[in-house]
């Protein structure tokens, strides 16, 4: 129960970190955010999967 709410709560910060990492890569390595943004979708999808996995457990 506790873990599930923790899971839900850290979704936002994880997306935030991903965003930061993508922009940092844009600035430092020159791979533009215009190209790497789908990573955000992937991360959102993975987080969603985890949530559903957590919810389907009794």
């Amino acid at each position, binding site marked *: 129960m*506790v873990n599930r*709410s*923790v899971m*839900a*709560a*850290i*979704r*936002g*910060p*994880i*997306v*935030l*970190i991903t*965003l*930061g*990492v*993508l*922009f*940092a890569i*844009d*600035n*430092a390595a*020159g791979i533009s955010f215009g190209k790497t943004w789908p990573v955000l979708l992937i991360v959102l999808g993975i987080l969603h999967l985890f949530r559903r996995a957590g919810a389907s457990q009794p």
Partner: protein
Amino acid sequence: MRRASLFAPLLLIALGALFLARNLYPDLPLTDYVARYWPYILILWGVLRIAEILYWASSSKPIPAHGVSGGEWFLVVFLCLIGIGVHAAHYTARGWFERIPWASVQVIGERFDYPVNAEKAASKAPHIVIEDFRGDLQITGSDTDAVKVTGRKSVRAMDQDGAENADKNSGFEVTGDPGQITVRLHEGSGVSGRISSSLEVTVPKGASVEAKRRDGDLHISNVEGNVTVSGRAADLDVRDVGGAVSVEGTYTGDILLKNVAKSLRFKSQRTDFTTAGVPGEIHIDPSDFNADGLTGPVRLSSRSRDVHVQNFRNALEVDLERGDLDLQPGQVPLSRIQATVRSGDVRLALPESAAFSLKATTRNGDISNGLGAGFKVDSEGRRHTLQGSSGAGPEISLELERGDIFVTRGSPKTPARETAHPLETINQ
């Protein structure tokens, strides 16, 4: 119930520290730091929030349903927009952010102008040092044996009395002996930062010049000694120099370097360039690097700029992170050319009669081979290599991470910049 987060106060403290640093050390390239490192704020924020949530969980305090609230997402978007804006302003349309007169924002009052007139006898080939002050400056060599400073000094003050006082407390000093002369603004107490100037300095033709600058335009022409420029300026124009030229610093406007007899070195935050001489001219603006007429060996590395180099002699080495590269050697015989580009297209136009061996590789892109027989393209997935040789000549090597390669003989498909340079007509 929402727990109080640490991030907001930390952000406030960081902002305060940033502005304080800006006021105390105006020379620190803070906008550069912000432009480069702002994404780490997001990462830090996320990490901090996770740590907080884990701490709340472990101490059995209530956990918010959303780790990052709606209002905070709004702040995130805002931060991203500012970050992208500063980054773009700094690296592509560099200029507007630096041009905001941060110093004058806190200075209210009126501007009062005072004429400047100073002169000092000099030797035939003196070393002239221009020390740090604000404003436009023009240094010209001529047949004279004195250093002469004319122009105006602007004082910002609340009223006439204040201005008179500031004028009395400050002045341009021309000091030193005939062999070494220093021009500097002497600022008395309480007038610091309120004085700018527009000066013309006439120096003996044989002089060498060293200018340490802050803001304003800088023009140097017609001197036979070495020229060293450092600091910060808007536009920079250096031409007709008999010695070596060294430029280092931050420039928010256009740079023109023309007719330099000896070596030239240009170093800014994004670009490092050396060449053995410039019979033609080099024009650098925030997005482009254009050189026409260089005596090599030439070496150029840049973070992000479109680079056009034509009519160069001797070896050329280019290392480009982001931007297109356009090379037209112009003269035969060729020398070694070596170019590495991480992201951008490369256009190479070789003279009809040139002898050379070529190896051009792109890991992710296409190759257009305009060289004909003797050259062939090997492909392996997205990776292409163009290889071959024409006669016995120097090695040309192009290496691209991502981008297309166009190699032609004679005049290129896409016309290069229209520059009226005598060398250009020779290779047509």
